[in-house]
């Protein structure tokens, strides 16, 4: 039997990058998958690909994680279509412009970062919890080495990601008695933006890779997604409140 057969996974920001890679990997091991995102075209294209790779059912729901009503709608649509939610992956996050000092960060940027990351995560957690109480469930949230390390120029992003970690630990303790587990992945994966950075600043990129024990940038599908599959499934049944730094050996707590 495939490891997530019969399970339903809801993945925010599933139209691209790590979110899409996780949706694909979970579909491949038998999960029915729901992806959310703001851009209809992107979402529909992603759903089509995931269906082709994974073979299972894929539902896409358009919405903004910053809007509680959109979140409630996404959860309701999931339950209506599949009758349950077993796994929630809170991946959506509007990325701030990197390299901004704290004092120069605008309110607009701060609110977009905080609301999409922290509040979006909280809204979805509150939204799925009633549906996870019966069979238990696994919630996977996302943090970042920028937050754990406190990288200069990443102020509101770092604060948002560390807040998600704090929230995750509280939820792990509050919802453990309902067998709802809450864990965090702090990933490093190559993206269009990071490849552009390597092209522009090859020296800086080499230096960065030299600080990584495994010496290579992560691949969303091969390196990050299997960890989400592990946390989503029964293999990790005794893990909760944990952070897994899937960063090739940078942050070691």
């Amino acid at each position, binding site marked *: 039997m495939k490891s997530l057969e019969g399970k339903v996974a809801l993945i925010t920001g599933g139209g691209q990058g790590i979110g899409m890679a996780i949706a694909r990997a979970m579909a491949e091991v038998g999960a029915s998958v729901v992806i959310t995102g703001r851009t209809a075209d992107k979402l529909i294209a992603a759903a089509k690909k995931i269906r082709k790779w994974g073979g299972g059912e894929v539902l896409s729901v358009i919405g903004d994680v910053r809007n509680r009503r959109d979140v409630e709608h996404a959860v309701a649509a999931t339950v209506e279509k599949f009758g349950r939610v077993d796994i929630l992956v809170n991946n959506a996050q509007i990325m701030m412009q990197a390299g901004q000092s704290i004092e120069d960060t605008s309110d607009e940027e701060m609110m977009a970062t905080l609301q999409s990351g922290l509040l979006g995560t909280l809204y979805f957690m509150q939204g799925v919890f009633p549906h996870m109480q019966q069979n238990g469930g696994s919630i996977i949230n996302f943090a970042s080495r920028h937050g754990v390390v406190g990288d200069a120029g990443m102020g509101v992003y770092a604060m948002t990601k560390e807040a998600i970690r704090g929230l995750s630990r509280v939820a792990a*303790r509050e919802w453990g008695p309902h067998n709802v587990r809450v864990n965090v992945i702090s990933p490093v994966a190559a993206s269009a933006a990071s490849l552009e950075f390597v092209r522009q600043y090859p020296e800086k990129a080499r230096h960065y890779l030299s600080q990584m*024990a495994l010496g290579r940038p992560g691949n969303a599908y091969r390196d990050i997604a*299997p960890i989400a599959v*592990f946390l989503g499934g029964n293999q*990790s049944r*005794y893990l909760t*409140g944990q952070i897994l730094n*899937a*960063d090739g050996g940078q*942050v070691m707590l």
Partner: protein
Amino acid sequence: MKDLSKKVAILTGGGQGVGFGIAMGLANAGANITLTGRDSEKLQHAAEKISKAGVEVLTVAGNVRQREHANQAVEATIERFGRLDVLVNNAQTVDGGYGTPLATLGDETIAAVLESGLLGTIYFMQAGLPHLKVNGGSIINLGSRIGIFGEVNGGIYAATKEGIRGLSRVAAREWGKFNIRVNVICPAVLSESSIEFLDKNPEEVKRYRSQIALEYFGDPLADIAPVAVFLASAESRYLTGQTLNADGGQMML
């Protein structure tokens, strides 16, 4: 799914408890196994059970406090199986290392706990390195919440376990370039002696259970072994230097 077939694992202290559970889990995933321990009768008995999973099991009796034993166990493994992929450093003498106040901790206890845990781990890591380098590999060491939290009366046991975590992070950074990953599991399971204690003290059971988010005591095979199988396999290929607290939600870093 058997994702460790054709792999070879050495597991120290595999005759009982968590070590035996992990060995069973690795065998169920298809790995051939070398088991070490001090008591050859106990080892033989464990090997018989594990080989029922359809894998080959080699036993090497000896004491991890002696470097010569580590060298012998690794040599015997290479001679028998031709390779080494996974090393699980589980052996640990506890006698008096936990439960004795610092003020009265004697030299004999200090030596027994430190040498079996920390030195045994480093001896096996050094002996295994040349062979793990060949195809890359995964080293799994065992830490403890007693060390991370700093439990009262945890004395030399806590120090030993945190020493192992420190060593693991250095090895993760030094050996990442050989694609050797080094991670730590901090398991929480009931040993036979603690089951006996809790049977006689039902109030303690309630108190202890209330500190575990998932509200149950871990089982070596069902709860801890799958985490080790994950760390041993390619699923975790981008994780190194990490600590996974497989404790049902007690320690959250």
